[in-house]
């Protein structure tokens, strides 16, 4: 059996769902970052797969962009996370509700 586009897309979907559930369910900020990374990478997989399938490099270009942005996001996010942890000694999402309306 040859591994085709559909397999990549199914993998991407499964990863996306895992990421989405992680985003919704996780209460730990660090875990949330992981979930976000999974989301982004699932998209990266589909970008790369479709790009290859179409023979068009734009998708892979985009995947690189996403990786770069994800990296910077994690960098900034982790920085803030550490700051928050220093101040409040936890990184539980439920304790962060200063924006309550």
């Amino acid at each position, binding site marked *: 059996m040859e591994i085709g586009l559909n397999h990549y897309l199914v993998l991407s979907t499964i990863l996306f769902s895992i990421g989405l559930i992680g*985003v*919704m369910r*996780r209460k730990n900020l660090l875990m949330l970052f992981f979930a976000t990374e999974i989301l982004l990478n699932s998209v990266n997989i589909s970008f790369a797969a479709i790009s290859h399938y179409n023979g068009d490099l734009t998708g892979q270009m985009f995947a690189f962009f996403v990786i770069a942005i994800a990296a910077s996001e994690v960098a900034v996010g982790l920085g803030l996370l550490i700051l928050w942890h220093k101040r409040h000694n936890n990184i539980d*999402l*439920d304790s*962060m509700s200063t*924006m*309550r*309306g």
Partner: protein
Amino acid sequence: MEMFLYIALFAPLVGSMFAALFSAKPKTLIAGIIPSALLFVSFIASSILLVYVLQTGSSIHVEMMTWMATGELYIPFGFVVDQVSVTMMMVVTLVSTVVHVYAIGYMSHDKSFNRFFAWLSAFVFSMMILVMSDNFAGLFIGWEGVGLCSWGLIGFWYHKESATWAANEAFIMNRIADLGMLIGIFLIYWNTGTLQYDEAFAAMPALETDVLTWMGIFLFIGAMGKSAQFPLHTWLADAMEGPTPVSALIHAATMVTAGVYLIVRASPLYDLIPNVGLFIASLGAFVALFAASMALVNRDMKRIIAYSTLSQLGYMFAAAGLGAYWVALFHLMAHAFFKALLFLGAGNVMHAMKDELDPFKMGGLKKVMKGTFIMMTVASVALAGIFPLAGFFSKDLILEVAFIDNHYIIYSVLLFTAALTAFYSFRLVALIFHGEERYKLFGIDPHEAYKFMLVAMSPLLLLAVIAGVFKMTYFEMVTQVLPATEYHIDSPIVYWIITIGTQLLVGAAIFYAYKKYTSRDIKVPDGTSAMEKSFGYKLLSNQYYIPYIYEEFVAKPYGKISAFFWSEIDQKIIDASVDGIAKAFYNTGENTREMHSGNLSTMLKWMVAGTVGMLSLAVVFGLAARHSDGVASILSAIGVK
């Protein structure tokens, strides 16, 4: 001559304004004398105009200034003195001069003496506008003006609840009719393009009968209100709450006859629509009988005379409806004299009896009030239509008109009413002036009115006696503008039978009334006698329960519906739904603020839910667009291809 026209018209206004200057001040005799003098001036000017019209046979027409002008509409303040209006002017100025002078005495103890004359003269001014105007809009000014003054004068003693109630009733009833009048005016304007009498009447023969019929009906509705015809009659009896001079001037001699004047004025219209005329005559005959029947049992002196007025107005409408306009106008004139006299006499009696109105509590007053006794008796004889007094020439003529035109039902109704008229008039006279002196039981010490009041009344007395003399002169004058139908019964035998028969009938009624009500057995009724318990008596003394019906089925429901509209519909439906919309926005915000818990996790969940929602919407729309053109066009309209 134009100068006299303006003097006749504006002298009462000047008098009214003069009196009004003093209206907030305590009684000042001059506030009564000046308006009376100015009215006399107006009377003189009217007389000069009468002589002029009589001699030259021409009319005077002036246009003072523009009132309303827009588009095609042009309404001036125009006045015309012709044979018809000059007759009315004479009646109005004469009776009002007499009433003014009389009122100086009658109102002398009233603290609002000055205000009374301001209103009374204002009334005369409005009445003069009404009769002198040369167009329907001007007529309407006077029409509403007399209604306003009547309101002010009925409610003159405004501390009395009954008086102010009656004033409002009169005004509102008249307003109902005025709507009809207004619609009539609109009809005339849109069909003839003008409101000037002469131009409008000239254009009318070319119009369709339907349109003319509606015009006639609506104008007559207006006349019904002012002349208190059934079913808008209840206000007239209640209007007796006003001071007696007011009843004499407004609710007997002048204002209530405005409806008849309108029909006479619009005779070219009503000549074209005999069917409406017949209806008017039938209603007139009905009202004559209807009102006379209520007068039979009433125990309020002024109300009896008021019903008698109503009954006589019915006669006038009967004549006018049958096309005998000049007869109607003649009866209007004669009636003004003797009815005003009757009312003023009743005013004297009221003063003597300390405002007691029940004739059963009087009796035997002829000894102390000789002058008043003579005047009221003469007025009643004239009203009954006994030869050779005024009523004979005018009222019997109406009977003849009905007879000659072969309207035998109307004739017999009117004839029967004539007998009733004689009966209730002399029932009143007998109860007041003859028989036992029952007033002594109530400890009243009656006295005759001031001499000058009796002198003031004397012109009316004279005219009530001799008005018939002027019949031919009058006939020749007014028939220059009104249809000159002479009413003669062809066969002399029939004529004499009818005339003498009528006289005998009336005489018998008078005799019976005298016999019944001068007897010593007359007591103040206490509601125990068999007659008072009978259904007929109750029906009549409660005015056929019509005021009760109006109160229960019109006035009260109106109040209830109004309250319902306000509390239920306006507040609970309309306003509540407006507030509901506002609340819906507010509540949406209030309920959804929970979403902004500030918890990142919850927000993320909402974000996911939103994304899923949007995506599924996109799918649904995509599918729908593929299968339906309607959705596709909407999507393209909002920019989605």
